């Protein structure tokens, strides 16, 4: 599964796109835990202390912010794009 990182999170990971060995149908929780295992410094951006999704990250599956779906329990289906951003806005 391909995951794209943007803005300051791309800097932190050191690359725009990474491949994760997750099966189709895995959840965003599976995905974020795999990411945190590979890049421990990502963990503070991904999770609040209680293990909930952090306000400091926005994860999009097929263009939808999982915050408006089922959060960490959102399933990632085959062919879904996954994009991870820090909060970004401008004007």
């Amino acid at each position, binding site marked *: 599964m391909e995951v794209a990182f*943007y*803005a*300051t999170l*791309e800097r932190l990971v050191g690359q725009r796109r990474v491949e994760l060995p997750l099966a189709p149908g895995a959840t965003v929780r599976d995905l974020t835990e795999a990411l945190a295992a590979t890049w421990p410094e990502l963990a503070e951006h991904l999770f609040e202390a209680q293990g909930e999704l952090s*306000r*400091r990250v*926005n994860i*999009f599956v*097929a*263009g*939808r*912010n999982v*915050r*408006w779906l089922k959060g960490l329990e959102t399933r990632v289906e085959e062919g879904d*794009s996954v*994009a991870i*951003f*820090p*909060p*970004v*806005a*401008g*004007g």
Partner: protein
Amino acid sequence: MKLSDFGQSIAHIDLSTGNCRVESAPQDWVEKFIGGRGLGVRYALEAGPEVDPLGPENRLCFMNGPLTGSEASMSGRWACVTKSPLTGTVTDSHQGGWSACRLRWAGLDGLVFEGQAENPVYAFIEDGEISLRDAREVWGQGVHATVAFFRERYGKKNLSVNAIGPAGENQVLFAAQVNEDDRAFGRGGTGAVAGSKNLKAIVIRAGQKKSEVSDSKAWKEARRQALDTIRDEANITSPRKGGLSVYGTNVLMNVTNTIGALGTRNSQLNSFGERAETISGEWVEQNLLVNDPTCHACPVACKKEVEIKDGPWAGLRMESVEYEPAWSLGSNCDNSNAASIAKVIDQCNDQGMDPIELGNAFSVWMEASEKGWVDEGEELAWGDEAAMVALTDAVAAREGVGAILADGPTRAAESLGHPEIAMAVKGQAVPAYDPRGLKGMGLGYATSNRGACHLRAYVAAAELGVVPSEADPLAWEGKGELVKTFQDLHAFSDSLDLCKFSAFAEGAEEYARQFAVAMGKEFEAEDVMLAGERIYNLERYFNNLAGFGRGSDTLPARFTEEPSTAAGSKGHVSELDRMLVEYYAVREWDEGVVPKVKLQALGIL
């Protein structure tokens, strides 16, 4: 510089007679409308909402806010308010850099120009004195040459120059005013109004002044609390860490593309695919960035200077590839070359034009060309960078097709017999958020008092998950109240006048605390929202009197009838009618018209 004296030094300049006088604003106005945008609208209303925007009766008002030029963070802004020649509504635009501060440090809180000079003039301001001087030597010059001319004459130190370029002189309806930092009063055609008055520039010489407040300890504490929120690493404003600080406004490009809210090919499409990456803030930061200077008292430094390294525009060093023009001249025109976007933005800064409006004028002409509605020899192909560069100067000069595009995309589309391809509201083109993928932004465009605008209600901050909220961008329910809240909050911050981006960290509490201490009076967060509501209603009252009645709050049918085809927003249209019902209810308006009882309740009548 006693902050609580704000409003006591408003200069009135009659360009027809050359008379200048400085007097206090009515105390009632300062109390109700705060400063900046609010006070400017009140002065514009005094001229009459029915005036010809390009006639001598229209007022061109430059207003500082109570915090302008102080030590408060992000306080380097002033408002320009007038009746817009582009829309016929009241309009306000805000400029960063240092010009606003220098006006305050020179001892003035605002400038109200009216009349029309017989020959081109500039206003020279120093030590509270204003003189009108002959500008014929620089008439016809671009902004960059005009700034150089005045620096040669008066020296660079402590000097600000706010000027129009040829576009303003030729009354291009979306002409801007630009200062020595290439910061602009961008939208609404304030530069055309200056041009109609033969006002080439405002030149201010003043060194920094320290603020005086009655309680210096409280002032320091109020500012520290606000600065702490700006520096908080959880906020996008965090210096060198937050997305806005590291990449500038163009950090948005990849996220709006991801969610299917990046208008492409005149909003016929909703995503630019992988091509968005090469016009994004990340790409610019990695490939073109050379410097990131700041405005007065700003730790964020969102301005990102770039230098083009190769190709036909190699060597060009320019102020910033901001998100809005990167979109309007980029995906909107099917152009994925950041270098050509930078070139056209730089031309706009020099000619004095709004690149949002220009990009939309181009995309109208491109769509019309594709559909065979343009005469042979006048076509403009999608993504034709060389033609865009050439046409930019032609628009400023009103030459050839440029003369048609100089009146903006709405009139250009009407001239072709196809008004439906103008992506505009009340005559002003839409900015860079497709309302099918960010529904609150669509309601914000429709109900903006200056025509389509992202900055009257930046609900994208909520819909993109930047500030805590429950604002799913694809949901229409609840957007009426959300948009009203943002409109009122921003109306207040635009009147202080703090940078809009302060709202990514600060809120009504921080605004109230700083304003209260600066003015030496009681002022709470709820007073912020009430004053903002009053200002928003004042603008709407102006527009109602100017002929914008029921049914004026619209969106182009493309957004309400043609479903999105992009991932993230696929199948969605804007449910504008439903959102308007909610919005008018919370506003207590009668289908866009402010009832007399509401005006009375807010102290406007």
